[in-house]
């Protein structure tokens, strides 16, 4: 089983709040990813990292930011949440092979 964790699993928050979604993995993987997925829709890559101090934006433009200070930790931050940010956020990590996904955070912004 993959050891990748996301917290919180569910978050309901008001507009304008700052939030941080946590993602940690214990597999020592260099590559980590954030995806955004609306119900029944495609996954869209919004951020990825090749390693510590390396972050890049993905194919889908996102107002969120990420940081990679430690190999095992890849948090995603929204400075000012809006209803359009309501979605599921999935974190993943990989070595040279397949990606391992966390359980996701379902974010609702009121």
């Amino acid at each position: 089983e993959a050891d990748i964790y996301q917290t919180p699993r569910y978050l309901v928050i008001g507009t304008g709040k700052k939030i941080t979604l946590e993602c940690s993995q214990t597999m020592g993987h260099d590559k980590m990813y954030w995806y955004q997925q609306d119900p029944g829709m495609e996954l869209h890559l919004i951020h990825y990292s090749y390693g510590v101090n390396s972050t890049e934006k993905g194919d889908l433009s996102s107002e969120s930011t990420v940081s990679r200070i430690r190999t095992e930790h890849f948090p995603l931050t929204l400075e000012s949440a809006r209803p359009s940010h309501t979605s599921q956020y999935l974190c993943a990590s990989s070595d040279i092979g397949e990606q391992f996904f966390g359980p996701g955070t379902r974010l609702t912004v009121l």
Partner: protein
Amino acid sequence: LAKTTQPISMDSYEGQEVNITCSHNNIATNDYITWYQQFPSQGPRFIIQGYKTKVTNEVASLFIPADRKSSTLSLPRVSLSDTAVYYCLVAVAGSASKIIFGSGTRLSIRP
């Protein structure tokens, strides 16, 4: 980027073999073909990966013709628990920046 095309949905019955085909006409020499399975409210889970010919593991087989412009995921004797969305991806092994999941195939298994 190698774009993939899959059927939007498929239906089958328990105990049947299910084959899901993915088209990737502009696959590059260094690209691998990977399939993932996703259940509702969960992250995708790796099923199988291949480069050419046939790959088999304990849950599925992957058939890739010589021109590599398509691939077929084969699920033997499906059960109700195989109801999920299946994604075909084409990317360089280990690449982070060129991974596109696409719409996937929604597979429904009936009793």
